């Protein structure tokens, strides 16, 4: 065997061993201390779609857009707060449909209309799960109505809400509060009033858990 073959072979074997070892022993230590903004923003907690008690110690507010792919990815991490199992956490969803997303406002209207029939969170999940299907659709209304049917909602009421722009004022109020808080991208999260600036959505769950520990 040639010397170069031996050297390259050894380097490759060491690299593979290092990588395999790394996968086994790598333990991620993440801390949320540096992801929380120092400023505590005054958020109107009376608004938005809520899960959990108003007296909860930890309040997590999300400004989100149903047509934003990052929001869909984040919804996998907020799902655990939708069950309302932990009485110490209140999760609040606020609308922040971005202007470049053509159907985002309509999706927000549909979610609110579903909320009127007691199924906001079910529609919230459906909209994110099917985002790939409706974002490019020429007739998003028909798609939204099919979702409403799937969820057993009164389609006529949903259709009327879309046509009459019934919840536009509520959505616009969310948008303007978001802007006044400095929201400029979605999703934006506030944990007990402090804006979260994380690189990875897993940090959201870590930050919530730390806040829970702190408040107990």
């Amino acid at each position, binding site marked *: *065997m*040639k010397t*170069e*073959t031996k050297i*390259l*072979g050894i*380097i*490759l074997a060491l*690299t*593979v061993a290092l*990588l395999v070892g*790394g*996968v086994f022993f*790598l333990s*991620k230590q993440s801390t949320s201390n540096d992801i929380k903004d120092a400023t505590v923003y005054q958020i109107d907690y009376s608004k938005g779609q809520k899960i959990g008690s108003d007296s909860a110690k930890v309040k997590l507010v999300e400004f989100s857009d149903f047509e934003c*792919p*990052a929001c*869909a*990815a*984040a919804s*996998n*991490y907020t799902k655990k707060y939708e069950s309302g199992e932990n009485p110490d956490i209140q999760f609040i969803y606020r609308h922040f449909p971005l202007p470049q997303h053509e159907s985002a406002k309509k999706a927000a209207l549909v979610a609110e209309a579903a909320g009127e029939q007691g199924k906001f969170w079910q529609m919230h999940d459906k909209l994110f799960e099917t985002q*790939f299907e409706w974002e490019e659709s020429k007739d998003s209304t028909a798609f939204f109505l099919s979702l409403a049917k799937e969820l057993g909602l009164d389609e006529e009421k949903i259709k009327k809400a879309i046509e009459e722009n019934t919840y536009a004022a509520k959505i616009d109020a969310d948008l303007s509060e978001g802007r006044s808080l400095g929201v400029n991208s979605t999703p934006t999260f506030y944990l007990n009033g402090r804006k979260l600036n994380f*690189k*990875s*959505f*897993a*940090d959201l*769950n870590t930050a919530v858990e730390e806040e829970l520990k702190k408040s107990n």
Partner: protein
Amino acid sequence: MISSNLSNRLIFIFSLFGLFVSSFLLYEYNFASSVVCPTGAGCDIVRASPYSSFLGISIPILGVIFYLGMAVLSVLYSQKSFQKIIFKLHLLGSLVGIGFGVYLTYLEIYVIRAICFWCVASFIISMFIALSVIFRRRNENGN
């Protein structure tokens, strides 16, 4: 044009870089709850998309297989036997790598609309590998 020895060493080194990137992604896809991404949420979005696997195989696994295969071929090439066939395999592998990289980058920009830093890094590495293969001096592949 570069000598076949230099070309082979470059392919080997770039393949190791690629192996590091795709192994890291493999770890993040399967063991970590969220992908560490210098470009914000892009990696999470790409991972959450239906395009994070190809024919049922996770994309980072394909990356590990590709880079490991290219590196093993480089080790064999240095043995100075079967160089002609190994050169052809290197060329074929690097073209497949580039083609797949173009396809994935297209999906990220136009379909998923999110950029995964590590996927782009892997694409750039595969381009360097292809360049190292393409610019290898042909007359040294005679044996």
